[in-house]
């Protein structure tokens, strides 16, 4: 045995014992992360990853002096990042509602966490989110508040909603927008189309109330946009042209439209491929931008031609908002160097005269 006299003294602060003590804040945070993982029914490996991220974050200098409110959100952000990295579909809205947090604050903590810990967060897949989102709908089982014709098979609704979401994605309705309103609108259309006779009179608001989900405000706009796309596609199907479809009646034919989606999109909307369309008309964008080579139809900003194919563009380009016109720069403005002499008369317009000063000080009555 080694001689005890040869051992040197080790201060308690240098021993591992003190370093292993976790602060109360860290312990509470870890417990919160674990509870959140249990509520979301996440696998064990997710919990371990989220806890390790949380420990790293709390020890990072940029999170030492943040408010308690932000520290409480840090755990939720770590769980959110972990889910995204494993392609587990969960939205920020879900985490915020579980933590009773404001989305703006959650967003700022999430972006800081991503930056400081240099975490790579893959994009959220809308297709994966469809199933998780529809799990919360209460229309797939008989219930007292749900009329019998409104109950539907979950797998059918999920399959059709996925197709509608894919269609939305191909027609620029998804890019840059919140995912949940699109999912709600797509689920509503899919559900209606499976038994249109009984369900056409049901509005989006009533559908959400029966399903027990919130109605996000943009869902009405997404629904309107989806119906416009479907109507355009329906105008290309010979056996549907005779029916003179509108936004209500097109729902009955969603199945057919989705089945021939690729063909109908090509027919209903302009294509960019110049080889198919031949010589293109120049675009109406900014004067110095190159002509829209390869485009078979006018570019966005121009009103769509009646009866002709419409360009497949983001909705904000089809119906652009009026922008305030800024004054065009004159040649003299562009010749400014910054070092021109400044005359007294130019400066005096920014100074008050003596009488004006007197009147102003009397009016303000400053001490």
């Amino acid at each position, binding site marked *: 045995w080694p001689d005890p006299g040869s051992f040197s003294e080790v201060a308690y602060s240098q021993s591992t014992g003190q370093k292993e003590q976790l602060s109360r804040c860290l312990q509470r945070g870890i417990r919160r992360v674990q509870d959140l993982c249990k509520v979301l029914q996440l696998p064990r490996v997710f919990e371990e990853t989220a806890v390790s991220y949380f420990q790293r974050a709390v020890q990072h200098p940029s999170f030492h002096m943040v408010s308690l409110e932000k520290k409480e959100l840090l755990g939720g952000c770590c769980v959110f990042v972990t889910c995204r990295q494993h392609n587990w579909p969960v939205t920020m809205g879900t985490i915020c509602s579980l933590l009773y947090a404001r989305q703006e604050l959650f967003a700022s903590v999430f972006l800081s966490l991503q930056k400081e810990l240099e975490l*790579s967060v893959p994009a959220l897949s809308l297709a994966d989110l469809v199933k998780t989102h529809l799990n919360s709908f209460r229309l797939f089982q008989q219930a007292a508040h749900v009329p019998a014709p409104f109950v539907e098979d979950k797998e059918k609704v999920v399959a059709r909603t996925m197709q509608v979401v894919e269609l939305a994605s191909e027609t620029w309705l998804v890019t840059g*927008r*919140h995912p949940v309103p699109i999912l709600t609108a797509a689920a509503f259309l899919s559900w209606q189309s499976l038994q249109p006779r009984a369900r056409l009179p049901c509005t989006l608001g009533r559908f959400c109330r029966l399903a027990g989900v919130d109605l996000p405000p943009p869902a009405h706009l997404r629904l309107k946009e989806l119906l416009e796309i479907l109507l355009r596609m329906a105008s290309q199907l010979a056996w549907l042209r005779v029916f003179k479809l509108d936004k209500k009646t097109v729902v009955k034919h969603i199945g057919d439209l989705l089945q021939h989606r690729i063909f109908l999109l090509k027919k209903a909307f302009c294509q960019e491929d110049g080889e198919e369309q031949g010589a293109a008309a120049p675009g109406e964008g900014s004067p110095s*931008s*190159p002509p829209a080579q390869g485009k078979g139809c006018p570019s966005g900003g121009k009103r769509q031609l009646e009866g002709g194919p419409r360009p497949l*563009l983001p909705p904000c380009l089809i119906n652009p908002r009026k922008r305030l016109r800024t004054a065009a720069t004159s040649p003299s403005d562009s010749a*400014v160097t*910054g070092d021109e002499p400044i005359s007294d008369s130019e400066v005096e317009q920014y*100074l008050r005269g003596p009488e004006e000063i007197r009147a*102003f000080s009397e009016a303000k009555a400053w001490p």
Partner: protein
Amino acid sequence: MDAESDVALDILITNVVCVFRTRCHLNLRKIALEGANVIYKRDVGKVLMKLRKPRITATIWSSGKVICTGATSEEEAKFGARRLARSLQKLGFQVIFTDFKVVNVLAVCNMPFEIRLPEFTKNNRPHASYEPELHPAVCYRIKTLRATLQIFSTGSITVTGPNVKAVASAVEQIYPFVFESRK
């Protein structure tokens, strides 16, 4: 359309922010009383002064630091800052126009094509960040230029950088990447 062929893109500068110092203490109350087009924010200790030509807004602190915003070119920003310094001189302050620096330039550029944001983000990690729940555009940072670009699906790109040259370089650098992800 080929990414390598010459493409003329309009870069429209919408805002230039500059700072300068007057090297003297400024009496904000006097500026508020004797200056026209002035707003005195007593609670935060600053004065806002607006010039008509060039159309800029100056934030003036009593320490002598002044920030000017609203110009549409670096030269215009300098001219506006000098005009403001002259106005303060006329009010009786011993102003010396020093430490002038353009600190931020905001510009907008429109690509002649739409951009598939999810594809662009996937191809350009970790520089690109796309969170549609938070913002409809992809945020792309170029560390070497200290420039940030907001790329929208419509092809519109908003660029912020420390000066006009950095902004122009940023647009040149991003063009081939957005071209790859065009619709």
